[in-house]
């Protein structure tokens, strides 16, 4: 057992932490998310230059031989700065599908473009009625000669406005909620028949509704085996959950520190409100929830390569614990900031918003508690 980071990992963390501090100061972020694009491709290019986009990939595909722990380090730093750039959709999700199930040719085509920052992905898995069930799909992919034809509607596809490519889940067989018959495709977003409606999300990102109307894709758009992709989707989304738990830890750490600092500055009844025990103990409970979240994030991250049941239990445990902590820390931060907490001007509200949305991504607390129970 070992809870230490390697020297290289410490260096990456330091470098990234500096970059987030310098490039992602509050005013720059505010301007970027309000701009037409809603993100900064130059930040993405810088991440590529620093090697961050290639960290979790092996050296033979041009990566740096890291793994889930490296993704955790990256995401924690991103969480501290509320970085909106699509690391999870591109590197963790698309990268994950390619890493686990991509053919030699698919890896060659896409991975190096992910690593050098030239290709950005979004992960189109959710549907208006599917909620957290990755198999509850109305989107279909019908065999057509050597290729497939996609039809359907994907909901709230995070980062889609910035993406050149989409990873799409679709049904190639079976009934709507069957475990069998689910397939995964990589689709060029500019393909004929794809229509998107882009919008802002409440937590400062961009997303799209994506409509597929008779979209033809070649046979080599399929990743992995036709009709047998559900376990793969569960694996990749578990990796995404672990990464986002790390992001939530980073965001909670900053939200807590901001709140403690605010309680030191803000005076009422002639004293800083941080002198009141009723607030002190609440801030301690926030701190404890944060520390427990870090522990659960370690657990989930370190169990990603374990057997399926063990992995799912650890990831669901993390999503439950970190999700509950995110809600506690978010809400308490606002309460202790008082009226200022509900203004757009104060940064704390934006941490609260991100933590709120984090809880519902890839399954909320109730969903993962149920999954944990089912795997007891």
């Amino acid at each position, binding site marked *: 057992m070992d*809870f230490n980071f390697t020297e290289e990992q410490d260096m990456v963390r330091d470098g990234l932490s500096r970059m987030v501090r310098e490039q992602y100061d509050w005013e720059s972020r505010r301007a970027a998310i309000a701009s037409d694009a809603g993100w900064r491709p130059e930040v993405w290019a810088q991440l590529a230059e620093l090697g961050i986009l290639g960290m979790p990939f092996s050296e033979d595909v041009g990566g740096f031989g890291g793994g889930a722990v490296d993704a955790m380090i990256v995401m924690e730093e991103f969480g501290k700065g509320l970085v909106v750039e699509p690391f999870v959709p591109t590197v963790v999700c698309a990268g994950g599908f390619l890493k686990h199930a991509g053919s030699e040719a698919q890896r060659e085509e896409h991975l190096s473009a992910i690593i050098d920052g030239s290709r950005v992905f979004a992960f189109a898995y959710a549907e208006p009625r599917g909620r957290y069930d990755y198999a509850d799909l109305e989107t279909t992919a019908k065999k057509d000669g050597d290729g497939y034809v996609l039809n359907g509607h994907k909901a709230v596809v995070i980062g889609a406005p910035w993406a050149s490519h989409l990873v799409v889940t679709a049904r190639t067989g079976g009934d709507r909620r069957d475990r069998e018959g689910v397939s995964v495709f990589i689709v060029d977003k500019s393909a004929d028949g794809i229509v998107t409606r882009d919008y802002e999300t409440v937590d400062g990102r961009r997303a799209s509704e994506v409509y597929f109307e008779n979209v033809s894709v070649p046979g080599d758009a399929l990743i992995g085996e036709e009709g047998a992709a559900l376990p793969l989707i569960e694996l990749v989304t578990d990796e995404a959950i672990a990464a986002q738990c790390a992001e939530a830890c980073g965001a909670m750490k900053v939200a807590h520190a901001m709140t*403690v600092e605010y309680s030191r500055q803000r005076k009422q009844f002639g004293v800083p409100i941080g002198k009141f025990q009723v607030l002190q103990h609440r801030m301690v409970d926030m701190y404890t929830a944060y520390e427990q979240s*870090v522990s659960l994030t370690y657990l989930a991250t370190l169990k990603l390569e374990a057997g399926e049941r063990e992995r799912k239990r650890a990831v669901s445990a993390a999503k439950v614990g970190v999700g509950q902590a995110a809600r506690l820390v978010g809400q308490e931060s606002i309460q202790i900031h008082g009226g200022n907490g509900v203004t757009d001007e104060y940064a704390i509200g934006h941490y609260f918003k991100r933590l709120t949305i984090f809880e519902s991504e890839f399954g909320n607390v109730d969903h993962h508690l149920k999954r944990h129970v089912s795997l007891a």
Partner: protein
Amino acid sequence: MNLEFTPEEKAFRDEVRAFISQNYPAHLADFGMREDMSPEDMVAWHKILGEKGWSVPAWPVEYGGTGWTPTQRYIWSEENARVNAFMPLPFGVAMVGPVIYTFGNEEQKAKHLPGIRSGDVWWCQGYSEPGAGSDLASLKTTAVRDGDHYVINGQKTWTTLAQYADWGFFLCRTDPDADKPQEGISFILVDMKTPGVEVKPIKLLDGGYEVNETWLTDVRVPVENLVGQENKGWTYAKFLLAHERSGIAGVARSKRGVEKLREIAAKETLDGQPLIEDFDFARKVSQLEIDLAALEITELRTLAGEQAGKGPGPESSILKIKGTEIQQRLTELTLEAVGSYGTPYYGSIANDTGSNEYPIGPEYAHHSAATYFNMRKTSIYGGSNEIQRNIITKMILGL
């Protein structure tokens, strides 16, 4: 980072497991919180471990510690929890022992450490007083110098298992005129057979007599029983509390408790189905397991930090708070799981196996209420959980 055991650690686990299975007293397996445990039972495993040299793993090697890594200590707790072993009581090995080897003089080390290691000398803790609970520094028991003796007068309370103790460590006021109440307190070792020491058991909610009032009337104690410097006892007391907290999480034992809870809930029924298959109940068990999984890693991170040279710091307050919350929740769910057979007061019922009477309730129900009542103490003792929050406020949040 990884959670795997190395081959050496696996070998260590096998060694420890074999030793426990060959040496742990069979009649004490799965001890629970039995009221029928004799004082001999309570020190039986301690004495066996003393002979083996494993009774004080966390101590420095020069004082008899095993030099185990944090991972090995983790394995040790896990393996003991597998049989629900009754571990050495903390008053010697986890409390006064570390104070003596850290702040005591050579004579004190030579005199007291061997008996703590072997389990031959039973220690108790004289901290709380009727008027000094969370505000421990307001304690009133005095020790007045008289030649080469201190004369101690006062009343201590909640003195755990003092009825069996050979020695006690007491916080006494030696300078009533000090600027702050924390200054002017001394840490003094008292032979419990000294004239003037009187122990009166207190009956608790579970029907047992775990704690006592300890009265000290003109108790004459040689000055060489002062540990460290006069009036610096508060420093040692705080040091001790941090040590006490780091073992207080009880993770391995709680993990075993969750397994037991699942076993009980598989036998009990609700609406004709095993209770554990009821989603509302199963959800509560999962939530408990999740909180416990988090605590387990938090404790391992703390241990890893200690190995890297950081002593048990204010982070141990988190272990105390979460560990005791989980222990209490576990006993609460266990009482809930046994249903109506949590109601009989088993202390009033002869449930001996030789009797011809029908037994009342399943065996696993017998201690469920008593244990639930008993474990309310955990968020109160060792510095109440509110005091732990004050410590984190000051030491970590800096408020």
